[in-house]
């Protein structure tokens, strides 16, 4: 569940029953769930596809900063993950 405190060491994963995939027809990552679909924007898709349950939020941030040659993405990633946990798109596995 999402009640546990979130930190940069948390390892978010896609919530059970949801599936993330790239849809060429929509040129976007989409999050699929029972009877619905969320079309993700570019940065949301890049964060979500790294939420495998293996990588910590710190790992995800470092990977994004490396991939996009950027710095200081930590707050954005944390804000997105927090929002996505609240919407039950993500979970923090025990």
């Amino acid at each position: 569940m999402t009640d546990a405190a979130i930190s940069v060491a948390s390892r978010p994963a896609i919530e059970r029953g949801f599936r993330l995939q790239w849809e060429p027809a929509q040129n976007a990552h989409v999050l699929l769930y029972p009877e619905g679909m969320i079309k993700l924007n570019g940065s949301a898709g890049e964060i979500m596809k790294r939420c495998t349950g293996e990588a910590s939020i710190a790992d995800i941030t470092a990977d994004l900063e490396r991939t996009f040659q950027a710095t200081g993405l930590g707050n954005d990633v944390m804000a997105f993950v927090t929002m996505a946990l609240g919407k039950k798109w993500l979970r923090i596995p025990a």
Partner: protein
Amino acid sequence: MNATAPNIAPGNAPRPGPPLWLLLELTYRCPLHCVFCYNPTDFERTGPELDTQDWIRVLREARALGAVQLGLSGGEPLARDDLEEIVAEAHRLGFYINLITSGVGLSEARIRALKTAGLDHIQLSFQDSSRQMNDFLSSTRTFELKSKVAALIKQYDYPMVLNVVLHRMNIDHVQEILEMADRMGAEYVELANTQYYGWAWHNREQLLPSREQVERAEEVTRRFRERVGRPMQIYFVVPDYFERRPKPCMKGLGSLFLTIAPDGLALPCHAARMLPGLKFPNVRTSSVESIWFDSESFNHFRGDAWMKEPCRSCPEKARDFGGCRCQAYLLTGDAANADPVCDLSPHHHLITEAVERANQPRPTPAPKVEEKPLVFRTPDNSRALFP
């Protein structure tokens, strides 16, 4: 197929996006005989079911266009013994696959095979919270079996999604229905008030609840939501007969949804078969691409050129698309009229009069003593209605 046909709907509606949501009604066969079923009452007159290879071709063609949400329904989709094969191909293609089922026929061997094939999600229907009413409303003995299936769904690590169709004879049991759902460990409960098409339309006078019943059920649901001690999402779908604006049916016909009926007929919604004057194409003879973009029947209700007043000049037409074409046709005889649910419709009195009749006290639940008998959804009754 005509490669030179302009992809322009009447009223210059823009070319639509892909049919993101595909519903395959694999069969009209069903072990249940529910009085509120939306399937056509003349289902016995429809042609033979598509075979496995036809369904797989439909899946490939629709996926290539961008379809991604897949509903497998019916009838009872488990009545098809190639369901696992269809699911496996759909999964390989990248669909998110929802099985919409009564649960009858879902043995442990089949749920294991469906899980392996890649089925994502199961929605299980219940007719009521008690064995007596469940079995009466579906004209079968299935309650115990459904309870076992609910346990299997949990065991195979699917979210437990219960769907209960509400109407006059079970809406007073919402408390018991929610308690049953809680005991079963349901994560989602959809309390879906009956929509009046097909068999439900035929039985409407007996199924439509009174306003007081609807309000009480909403209140019970609200209180239950506050009290339930674990994550359980409860959706209460208000019956549109009690609203003053129509539902944005299918978000506009031909915008997102594509239904393929058991006989291969392609429809912009699962009830559209009834609409007169439209010759819907069949996947046996047309590609999904030509059906979606080029067929006259799919283009007909795109855009707003088909609308009459009061919809045509209505500022809300972009929100509700004039409501449901099938409901407009059933109630007024013209599918281009405003959905009479809208209180701006000159036919709105047809709705308020039906609700007025429903508000009159009647001996319920005792459907057998009413003048007009309930007609169960059976092949015999279908043939009797359409000899």
